[in-house]
């Protein structure tokens, strides 16, 4: 007899025999020779030597991925930046590009103000609205690996030498870095000399004087 209501139909459909048939357990049994395949029981773990005193939940691995550093909209390739900290504090430098680590690649240019090709964090920088044309400058070979520190190899010291202070080997810049600096600056200096007074501007340091209100100055 046909079911008289939708509820009755649903009950019939959810019944044990119906779901058994729908899930195809009969087909799986047939494939496995009449019995439902049983998973092999896991090998019994050896009795641990040590049970911790408190029941502590193990920490779950963090799935957080840090976002790429957002570059301030006022900083575009060729912008003149003012460095605010470090040994080049106050120097006006040219921004080249943002590296993958989020740091900014800058150069003085070296001939103009002594700032080499360097990385700097954008939080320690004021972006001015002065821009230099940087289209002829090739910055592809600079990345974070270029600036990685060289690993120091420590020679094993004999007992007598242990108490001698190690002589600091004078660090010399490898020649290829000096050439890279020259290559990048050659094009940049041409673009800078095209603008009157820009070279003098970049060689001067920025400082606050009496009466200056930095919160009211526009850069």
């Amino acid at each position, binding site marked *: 007899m046909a079911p008289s209501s939708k509820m009755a139909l649903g009950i019939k459909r959810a019944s044990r025999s119906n779901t058994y048939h729908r899930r195809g357990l009969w087909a799986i049994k047939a494939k496995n020779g009449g019995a439902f395949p049983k998973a092999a029981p896991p090998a019994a773990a050896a009795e641990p030597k040590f049970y911790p005193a408190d029941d502590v939940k193990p920490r779950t691995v963090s799935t957080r991925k840090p976002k790429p550093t957002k570059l301030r909209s006022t900083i575009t390739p060729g912008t003149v930046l003012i460095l605010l900290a470090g040994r080049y504090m106050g120097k006006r430098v040219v921004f080249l590009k943002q590296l993958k680590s989020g740091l900014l690649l800058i150069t003085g240019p070296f001939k103009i103000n002594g700032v080499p090709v360097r990385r700097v964090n954008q939080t320690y920088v004021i972006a001015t609205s002065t821009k230099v044309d940087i289209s002829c400058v090739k910055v592809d070979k600079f990345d974070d690996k270029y600036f990685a520190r060289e690993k120091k190899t420590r020679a094993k010291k004999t007992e007598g030498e242990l108490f001698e202070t190690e002589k600091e080997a004078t660090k010399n810049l490898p020649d290829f870095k000096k050439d890279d600096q020259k290559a990048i600056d050659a094009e940049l200096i041409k673009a800078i000399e095209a603008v009157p007074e820009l070279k003098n*501007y970049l060689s001067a340091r920025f400082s606050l004087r009496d009466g200056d209100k930095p919160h009211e100055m526009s850069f």
Partner: protein
Amino acid sequence: MPFKRFVEIGRVALVNYGKDYGRLVVIVDVVDQNRALVDAPDMVRCQINFKRLTLTDIKIDIKRVPKKATLIKAMEEADVKTKWENSSWGKKLIVQKRRASLNDFDRFKVMLAKIKRGGAIRQELAKLKKEVAA
């Protein structure tokens, strides 16, 4: 010392406080002892306290509460803009605005120009001093 600038219909004033700070407006009507109805070509007509206005020397010829188009025509005929920009008050404000909008590079160039001018003045002064001493 009699007063020379009066609150009257057609008096041009400068707003010295509030949202419209620095705007040149025309008094088109007086509301009561403290407030005026004020209008300018690029703003919605509104009432403003006299304390927020500084009167200027410029006056235009309009009737009470003119239509916007009439107001604009009267301002053009009286040439308010040029009169204002040629007055020393107006010139001062323009210079202030320019100085505030200077770039860091611009400020550097101004510094070089000031040094150059100072040097030229000192040279002339030295020449004149020599003539006097001689």
